[in-house]
């Protein structure tokens, strides 16, 4: 087991290497000059050249890449061009809101989605099924910012049930922390719920048609244990896979959600950095997000062993 985990962790390295190359090339080939942005308006070309030299932007691209990857390998994400602070500490300062948002969203979304998917499968072909699937199609096709502004408009501005925007650290109390997270979590989780609910329904329908479900019924098992004990366990592997893959949706969504709800998290950090062409921050955040994605999917792969005894042997 330990051997497998180590082997899988090592297999992350080439993936992350490819990510590093792509991110770097994409940024450095895209238009925009951080030096010009830092220097401001009406500056002489000499000044810009000086700033470029300070930032190392005058070096050939391959050289810049090697320097960056070299420090990456020592765990150093570099310095922000704009703030001068280390990218690691900037991300660290912004981590709590993002982790909070991700945590509440995933927790609620996974349970809600699986519940909805099972319900739809159990009521296949009925109105309930069609309502759930209708919601799933909608949740998947309406963009995060539309849902976000709609939620703010209805629940914060009109009904005044919840705060409009912002973030309260958990150190100031769980209740205010949660109140600020409710709407962004819904906005962020919508597509994720839709995705997981769909796969849950499809997989459950396949499982429900299996011979062993008839055996369970012939034994006198009631509806609920039929669904959750006998069927859902068999549907677990495809569902876990989508829970893992769907994290990509969340990562994309977190950037938009933090902007809409004015949450000072890592997503906002990267949005601001993009506006300033602050390459090290953008690169650093993307590396961290990619790392999280790859790691989550690694965990999902490892979970198969626990979910399906046939994979165990």
């Amino acid at each position, binding site marked *: 087991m330990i051997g497998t985990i180590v082997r899988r962790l090592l297999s992350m390295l080439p993936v992350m290497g490819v990510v590093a190359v792509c991110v770097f090339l994409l940024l450095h080939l895209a238009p925009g000059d951080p030096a010009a942005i830092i220097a401001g308006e009406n500056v002489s070309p000499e000044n810009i050249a000086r700033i470029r030299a300070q930032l190392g932007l005058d070096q050939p691209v391959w050289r810049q890449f090697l320097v960056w990857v070299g420090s990456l390998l020592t765990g150093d994400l570099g310095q922000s061009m704009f703030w001068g602070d280390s990218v690691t500490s900037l991300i660290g300062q912004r981590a709590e809101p993002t982790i909070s948002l991700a945590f509440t969203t995933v927790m609620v979304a996974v349970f809600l989605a699986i519940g909805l998917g099972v319900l739809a499968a159990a009521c296949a*072909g009925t109105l309930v099924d069609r309502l759930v699937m209708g919601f799933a199609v909608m949740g998947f096709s309406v963009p995060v910012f539309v849902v976000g502004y709609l939620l703010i408009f209805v629940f914060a501005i009109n009904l005044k049930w919840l705060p409009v925007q912002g973030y309260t650290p958990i150190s100031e109390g769980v209740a205010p922390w949660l109140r600020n997270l409710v709407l962004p979590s819904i906005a962020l989780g919508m597509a994720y719920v839709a995705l997981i609910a769909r796969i849950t329904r499809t997989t459950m329908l396949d499982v429900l048609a*299996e*011979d*062993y479900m*008839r*055996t*369970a*019924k*012939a*034994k*006198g*098992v*009631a509806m609920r244990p039929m669904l959750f*004990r*006998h069927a859902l*366990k*068999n549907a*677990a592997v495809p569902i876990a896979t989508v829970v893992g893959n769907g994290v990509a949706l969340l990562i994309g969504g977190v950037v938009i959600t933090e902007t809409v709800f004015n949450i000072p998290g890592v997503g906002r950090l990267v949005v601001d950095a993009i506006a300033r062409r602050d390459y090290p921050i953008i690169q650093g955040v993307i590396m961290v997000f990619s790392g999280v994605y790859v790691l989550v999917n690694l965990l999902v792969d490892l979970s198969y062993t626990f*979910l*399906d*005894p*046939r994979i165990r*042997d």
Partner: protein
Amino acid sequence: MRAGAEPILSVEDLHTHFFTQDGVTRAVDGVSFTVAAGETLGIVGESGCGKSVTALSIMRLLPPGLGRSVGGSVRFGGRDLLTLDEAEMRRIRGDRIAMVFQEPMTSLNPVLTVGEQIAEAVMIHQGKSRHDAWARAEEMLTLVRIPDAARRVGDYPHQFSGGMRQRVMIAMALSCHPQLLIADEPTTALDVTIQAQILKLMLELKGRIGAAILMITHDLGVVAETCQRVIVMYAGRKVEEASVLDLFDRPLHPYTRGLMASIPRRRPGAPRTRRLQEIPGMVPSLREPLSGCPFAPRCPLATARCTAEAPPLEQHGAGHVVACWEAGRIGVS
């Protein structure tokens, strides 16, 4: 043999239809029979003649929205199972009537241990604690002669061979001491040597528990080895019923005679090659309502009357009924 004993199951004029896009299939078309306490009744017939649907109708396990019993009654324990609500039916399934299916490879849940699957029935119906139910599961595995039961009880189905899985199915079915065990082709998927062992085991346990068995098979050999009485089904109907001895001595329906002529000679270990497909012609479609005898198109003795008018079931000797216009002629020959 307990002829004349009070029947525990009495199926009366059962009609079960499938409603598909292409129309209505009359899978079971007016079948009646009884099962006495402790007896083994066989249902035999070619594939597609409605044996499994009969069993599923009794258990009310037809695919929902597709198959439905539209007529007749299934009396068991003084009640008509077809009129019970789902909760009442659940209390009977697995407790008073249990079922063993044809496919041991797919009939057990792959993600639950065999112990969990056996213990579940015991917990549901006998209200035993998890611990006691587990002990019972182990006991049942010993009873069906799974070696090293104490350890195997925690294994998953994929860790067992087909024959062993069928033993697990039998253990599960008998764990609550049902009055009736419905076995739908329990050995068809197994090879010949294992078949014999499983049948022997079923008969032995049936005696111990005092259950009756409804043995569904396409194999008259299985009937000969296990049953006291047998009904022969064709195209959703019962065409003949007799004691096993009587049926083998004096088969009256041409279809039954065809089945007997096509019993494959089997040696232990030989691969199962032939099924009962040797009667020339095809099983009729169950979509169109049949006029006349359903077997007439394939029958060597068919007359004009056979294609025009369906023969009723008639008594030909004690406990021997047959639906054939020419049965008198056959009986004499």
